[in-house]
């Protein structure tokens, strides 16, 4: 079923060496390739549209679900996944899409992920995007992520796209109820002629809800990046947006964090910075024996970690 190329893509997007532990669903070139469920985690194919329902039983602890998508040919793939994370469950979900496009036609994956994180549940969601391939065909990934977090729920999201995706538009929407917590960390590197747009909207609906978005990016060559990070405080809540970009070569970066308070007890902060690598940093590392290229790589590696 899975060949060497598939395994390499799996490793890139899900840190997997072979098949994952726990529940998983592997989608390859628009088809289900392999699936495993556990006593607590069910995966059901949707009947009305392409995609799956992932149902985590209430109280499930320390289990994981891997749902990688791999494309190894040019294809347009659209998928709808729905996640039901039962009350007081604590799970890790690893999604990700790896594209190996050998052709001159485009390969595109649009994933729409909807999450319901029930009362007191905790979810860590990791999404990695990766592209490669000798073909001139474009590699396009457009994820849409919608997350509802009920009372006392905790959601941690890591979104990583480091290499090889030509165009991406990622939309993320999160709604937080009473005492719910959200931490988003986004890492993005673009080079060549790539473009990336990231729209994140967080609504702090319930009292004592908190949200933190930490976005770090590096734009190289002629690539373009555009960040729209929005936070709405409707309650006694706290929110913090931090976006930080390193710009290099002829790249363009736009960063527009926005905070809106609709309640006098909402406390919201945004910080945004764009700049090149400081020459002092390069000089410091060179004075420790690194070449200029090694110093640059070390700085970027740390920044995007």
């Amino acid at each position, binding site marked *: 079923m899975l060949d060497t190329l598939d395994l390499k893509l799996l490793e890139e997007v899900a840190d997997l060496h072979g098949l994952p532990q726990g529940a998983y669903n592997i989608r390859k070139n628009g088809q289900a390739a392999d699936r495993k469920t556990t006593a607590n985690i069910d995966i059901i194919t949707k009947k009305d549209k392409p995609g799956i329902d992932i149902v985590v039983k209430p109280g499930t602890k320390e289990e994981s679900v891997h749902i990688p998508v791999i494309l190894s040919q040019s294809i347009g793939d659209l998928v709808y996944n729905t996640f039901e994370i039962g009350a007081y469950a604590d799970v890790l979900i690893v999604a990700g899409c790896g594209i190996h496009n050998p052709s001159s036609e485009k390969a595109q994956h649009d994933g729409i992920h909807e999450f319901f994180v029930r009362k007191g549940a905790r979810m860590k969601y990791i999404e990695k995007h990766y592209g490669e391939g000798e073909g001139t065909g474009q590699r396009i990934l457009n994820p849409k992520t919608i997350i509802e977090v009920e009372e006392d729920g905790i959601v941690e999201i890591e979104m990583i796209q480091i290499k090889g995706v030509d165009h991406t538009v990622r939309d993320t929407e999160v709604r937080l109820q009473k005492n719910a917590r959200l931490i988003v960390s986004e890492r993005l590197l673009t080079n060549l002629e790539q473009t990336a747009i990231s729209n994140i909207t967080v609504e702090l609906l319930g009292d004592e809800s908190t949200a933190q978005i930490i976005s770090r990016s590096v734009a190289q060559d002629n690539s373009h990046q555009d960040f729209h990070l929005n936070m709405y405080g409707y309650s006694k809540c706290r929110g913090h947006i931090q976006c930080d970009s390193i710009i290099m070569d002829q790249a363009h970066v736009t960063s527009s964090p926005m905070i809106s308070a609709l309640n006098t007890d909402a406390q919201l902060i945004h910080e945004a910075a764009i700049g090149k690598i400081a020459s002092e940093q390069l000089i*410091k590392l*060179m*004075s*420790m*024996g*690194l070449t200029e290229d090694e110093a640059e790589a*070390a*700085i970027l590696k740390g*920044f995007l970690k």
Partner: protein
Amino acid sequence: MLEMTNVGVTIEGDNGSVEVLKDINLKFEEKKIYVMTGPNGSGKSSIAKTIMGIYQPTAGKIILDSTDITNMSITERARLGIGYAFQRPPLFKGMTVRDFLNYAAGPDNTIMHCDLLYDVGLCAQDYLEREINASFSGGELKRIEIASILARNLKVAIFDEPEAGIDLWSFQRLTETIANMNIKYDTTIVLISHQERIIRLADEVILVAEGRISGITTQGKILDDIQCLDTGCECRNNCIKGGEDNQCLIL
């Protein structure tokens, strides 16, 4: 031995060129400790940067153990065993103290992170996995900077105002550590400082003023002059001010 002969440095800036160093002649012998002192803006850091290759000499020669390093890059000089602890170390967002020290040590050397941090008065448990970002105080940054120099096996180590932001208690350990580095690895040490306790480590004291070497003297002579200040004898003409806390040395 590191030798600077008739070294001059002129820097092209936005407002024309600035002659930062003029006719510098210095010899740094193996195993010795030197303290370089002088007023703010006299050129001490510029001498250090010129040795490290951060500033390229526009006149003169720099020789390290009979190798002409005048036109070598920063990286080449670092690989020959020159190290420089910056006066104002930069931040590295995202890079941990552990990674930073590993880069300093180089790929072929294993280092004892905990011992290194202990030597600069930091608790490894609290610091190793922390990012070198704006959450650090000036003193913490300085200590990590110094640790990165201690992590390397150097021929010449330059410390630019290492005392800044470091409390007296840690200071004692720091001076011992620097003295040890000198004994253990035969490292030539150059300390840029105005601090009496650092001057006490010196085999030779180099006085810098207005981009030149204005004298080479002993710690005894310098410290006698400080004594003179403490006992309130009259301030003589060439009083030099410097250091974060603006101590006054009378020469």
